[in-house]
């Protein structure tokens, strides 16, 4: 895993991103009761095959961009630690601030939601499970570490209770 993202930040981030959406139930957000033993529908698994390939690539680009940002900052500063800390203060989402990653996460969140509304409750998959929890299985540590830098999911909820 890249040293550009502290491990503690990754663990906190995973927990935050998987638990936070559950607190939106009272707001009318569509929160599927996920049945882990079903693993969603075939359509979800096909969509996930596309997603994991794309997100793995975009997260790599995002990480390179972040590492270059940190390198540039540390070269200009007499104090390396302070420069790195300042970079995280200026951009609290670190590599996850990369606009291409935000667009990708949003696209697949909404695609997962569109599948959910066509399926029975026992086949629905919460978008955060699809985007992050499923990535925890397999060799995607680096990608997970980039995703875990998001302080919150970049998704909106409209007045009708739909993700937007």
């Amino acid at each position, binding site marked *: 895993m890249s040293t550009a993202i502290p491990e503690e930040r990754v663990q906190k981030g995973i927990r935050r991103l998987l638990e936070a959406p559950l607190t*939106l139930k009272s707001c009318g957000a569509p929160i599927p009761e996920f049945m882990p033993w079903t693993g969603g529908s075939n359509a979800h698994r096909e969509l996930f095959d596309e997603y994991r390939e794309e997100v793995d690539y975009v997260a790599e680009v995002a990480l390179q961009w972040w590492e270059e940002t940190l390198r540039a900052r540390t070269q200009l500063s007499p104090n390396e630690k302070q420069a790195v800390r300042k970079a995280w203060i200026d951009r*609290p989402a670190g590599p996850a*601030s990369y606009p291409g990653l*935000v667009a990708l996460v949003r696209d697949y969140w909404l695609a997962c939601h569109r599948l959910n509304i066509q399926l029975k409750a026992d086949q629905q998959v919460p978008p955060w499970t699809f985007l992050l929890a499923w990535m925890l299985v397999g060799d995607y540590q680096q990608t997970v570490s980039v995703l875990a830098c998001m*302080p919150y999911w*970049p998704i*909106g909820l409209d007045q009708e209770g739909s*993700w937007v």
Partner: protein
Amino acid sequence: MLSPEFQQLKNEYARELRDSKAAAELWWKELNQSYSDGQMQTNPVELWPLGPVSHPWVIATYRKYYFLCLELNNKTRESTGAPFVVEKEEDWGNADEDISIAYEVEPKVFVLDSLSGGETNDLYEFLLSLVFVPIGLKADEFA
């Protein structure tokens, strides 16, 4: 200074954002109450480190008006005879009101900086905590 069309859009944005802010703050208060009462095990601030500003209601409003601003820019470009004065981040607040009317505004300036000062300053200060911009660009939009 904003053109009348942008001023109208800003008024609608401020009204809607104020509603989203109030609803998100109420949700946040109730979440913290649940934690204090022991009904919720995790401290809300661990799940939502930036607090109510990151509620999806606020994100929905922010995104909606970001793209409405983009749309209005495109409309202005298509219309004939409108002078194009672009309001950019570095220009905000420095314009000479007598001669500079913005018929085109950068969306990121519209959704944040245009709220700074006056009756909407509370909304500006609220949005300052939205440190992770929920917009996103696709590869073909970078150019």
